[in-house]
């Protein structure tokens, strides 16, 4: 079908393909503009700052770091996205992964198993703890109608307190400082890194492959299975799902369990690839980063992968800014603006493509089979 510029302008042709790509790019561009304004207002060189960031961020050492950051971010965002696809707001990913990481590290430190089974056990424990913690919110929602937003936020706080208590109970001092942590996991439980990036001695987390597998699993589960269909149907229209015989309450519990299980994985690349012990400086707040990246990636495994890499790049390259006497918080501003503008851009693109599709259909019908009776106008 040939279409003129006005056709495209007035939405007479389907533009979903490039609109869905253009929306995030425009949003990132917009965020860059806002950041530029902030930079110039604070008296910093705009162009130099960006060039410095890109320069630093593209060095082999930085690339490894970006991949490692992105691995955890990716898992976190997938955990959030699974809930989002069903209109469930699992704000509690943060508490779920921290508690899961702590218990899994403690179990991993306490036992010794042959190599392949040791890390598998630790990962399974983490998933179980994450799922159980998220499951509380799921059961509360299904049985008592408690909003999962409220309950997961509260569970986050409880997880922080419970974590501190458990850590104090199980902790041993870590050599070479005043840090405390769980008993280090024996070598049999480590997942060795892989040298993916030439030119750097740093290694990429071995569990990056697990993250990729989870991404593929996410896609398959949602798009190829009956469970995924029920889940997406519930997310699109709960009433239609009920009328179609989907047991929405059960779906809520299952979705929370799966989301929590995935959240349990978030701490694993770090724990099994580098730290080997859950200590006071175990990274916190990843669950909230995951929410931002899930929005950025439109709850789609491929989109989230790009979002996670972008986030990793921004985080890593912000490290150089201090040396140039520029506040690294500029990157936080940029991340915030990206999320906001992406959400708005997606909404606009979405409305646009719905209207465009309707116009396209009526146009194609009118063109293909001109019906004598007045059809479509009345209905």
């Amino acid at each position: 079908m040939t279409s003129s510029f006005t056709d495209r302008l007035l939405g007479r042709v389907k533009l979903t393909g490039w609109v869905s790509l253009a929306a995030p790019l425009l949003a990132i561009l917009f965020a860059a503009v806002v950041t530029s304004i902030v930079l110039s207002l604070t008296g910093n060189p705009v162009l130099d700052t960006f060039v410095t960031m890109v320069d630093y961020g593209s060095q082999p050492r930085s690339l490894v770091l970006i991949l490692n950051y992105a691995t955890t971010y990716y898992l976190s965002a997938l955990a959030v996205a699974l809930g989002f696809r069903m209109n469930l707001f699992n704000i509690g990913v943060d508490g779920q992964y921290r508690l899961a990481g702590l218990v899994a590290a403690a179990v991993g430190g306490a036992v010794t198993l042959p190599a392949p089974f040791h890390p598998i056990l630790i990962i399974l424990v983490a998933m179980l703890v994450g799922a159980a913690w998220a499951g509380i919110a799921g059961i509360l929602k299904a049985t008592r109608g408690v909003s999962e937003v409220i309950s997961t936020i509260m569970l986050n706080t409880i997880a922080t307190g419970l974590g501190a208590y458990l850590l104090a109970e199980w902790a041993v001092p870590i050599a070479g400082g005043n840090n405390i942590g769980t008993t280090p996991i024996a070598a049999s439980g480590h997942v060795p890194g892989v040298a993916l990036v030439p030119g750097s001695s740093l290694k990429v987390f071995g569990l990056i492959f697990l993250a990729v597998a989870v991404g593929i699993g996410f896609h398959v589960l949602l798009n190829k299975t009956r469970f995924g269909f029920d889940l997406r149907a519930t997310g699109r229209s709960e009433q239609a799902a009920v009328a179609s015989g989907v047991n929405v309450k059960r779906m809520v519990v299952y979705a929370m369990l799966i989301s929590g299980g995935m959240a349990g994985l978030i701490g694993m690349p770090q724990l099994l690839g580098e730290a080997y012990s859950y200590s006071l400086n175990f990274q916190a707040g990843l669950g909230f980063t995951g929410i931002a990246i899930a929005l950025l990636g439109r709850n789609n495994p491929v989109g989230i992968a790009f979002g996670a890499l972008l986030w990793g790049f921004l985080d890593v390259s912000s490290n150089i800014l201090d040396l140039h006497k520029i506040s690294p918080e500029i990157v936080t501003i940029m991340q915030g603006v990206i999320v906001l503008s992406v959400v708005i851009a997606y909404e606009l693109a979405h409305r646009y493509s719905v209207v465009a599709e309707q116009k396209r259909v009526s146009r194609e019908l009118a063109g293909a089979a001109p019906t004598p009776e007045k059809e479509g106008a009345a209905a």
Partner: protein
Amino acid sequence: MIPTGPLGTLTQEASISTETTVSEVAVQLEGITKRFPGVVANRDIHLTVQKGHIHAIVGENGAGKSTLMKILYGMQRPDEGEIRVNGTPVTFHTPGDAISAGIGMVHQHFMLADNLTVLENVILGSEPKKGGLALDFAAARTKIRQISDAYGLGIDPDALVEDIGVGARQRVEILKVLYRGARILILDEPTAVLVPHEVDELFDNLHGLVREGITIIFISHHLDEVLKVADAITVIRRGTTVAEVNPEGVTARQLAELMVGSELPSPETRESTVTDVVALEVEGLTMAAGTWRPIPKGTPASFYMDRMRQEGGRLLLADVSLTIHKGEVLGIAGVEGNGQAELVEAIMGMRPAAGVVRLDGVEITDWTTLRRRDAGIGYIPEDRHRHGLLLEAPLWENRILGHMTEKVNVRGWWINRKGARADTQRIVDQYDVRTPGIDVFASALSGGNQQKLIVGREMSGEPKLLIAAHPTRGVDVGAQAAIWDHLRTARAAGLAVLLISADLDELIGLSDWLKVIHRGEIVAEFDPATVTPEQLGSAMTGAGEEA
């Protein structure tokens, strides 16, 4: 102000007419016409409401009452015609304009914040200011007391809304409108949510209001109530005013006939396909408004109903029993909101209810919705956008919706994408769904084509029972005929159909037997071949009790 409205210009169909009085005219509508794409909602409406009267507007659902009231309240603008308030021609762009002209509306569903007090609810949106910033609660409280005393509403401004009863809430709604200076009140179905003694209280209040010079426009289809309270009655049918009658000289039956029309469509002569094999059996289905409490199995519905009534609850369904045979279409007639939706949802297992449901002799009362669908119940929901479709999903995914266990759609745990797509194409071809393909979103199709897709989907998998709720609502004439044909064909093939409709053409044209539902009860049943409009109208509006 001098009354200017010429009276007696009404299209008179009934022999009874009001005398032209010398009293003032509060509202006059002249030749109001409102068109929506493809339909004329109001056509040449004439209405004259005297000041200080309770003027009732009666008509079936879909007759155009709501549109007319929306026009009068500034929510919609008429395409033609003139509105005069107190003799002055007015043009309303928003409800705000109507309020400043002294017209207020009390909606059927209350719009009150439960966690605020009466006072806070009343002033919400028109707060009296003190010194520019602070709220002047004292002045508001005094004003509310004054209004409440003047009209005998008996409202305590400091009570929490969640603590007061339904009748009192309605009086708060009325007070809210009076507070804003309205002298003309539109009440939309005010008795729908009330129990009988509250209705009487409301009528006392309404009489109190008119004594003080307030004019009331009262919309209802409960004819007994209308006759009891109204000073004048206007009947609307198919979008236009067909008669203005004086309640003194008319019976509920005559009014019902005016509402329904004097001629019913004649059922098509055709072979009966009704067999003596029972497909669906419903016994004593009972559902209360509000929260549902389980009752012990085997407890008769009457016991449950008595208990509910003692507690002052309202029953949405009261002891409904029905039987549908294979090859039979059972039509449920009734004014909307009398329990039809609840009946369907109870049979589908979407809402808990007391009573017994059997499909093909097997009790399915405790089954989930999916299991019921699986066992062979097809369901064409009343609201296809909310219950029947995933609007933002492609057609082939909509084919799977509600049929997640059918072989063509799934293989074990997996979605059978190929099978579902092929079967969607079959439906598109067989049911003449006009679409460029099966990958477009359902939202892109016209209403008629969406409905044809749903009908095709629900007919597949050889259902034993089809529940069709308003199957041709909002679809064009071509699609309507096609859907009726499909229903007839399926019926001939032995399908049992429960048909719920507000369209008498549809009900009489398709049904083998008619039952009438009113306030959650089956109040009458008729053979569609012999039923008269008078009988049907009386039963639907609850006017037939005395005969």
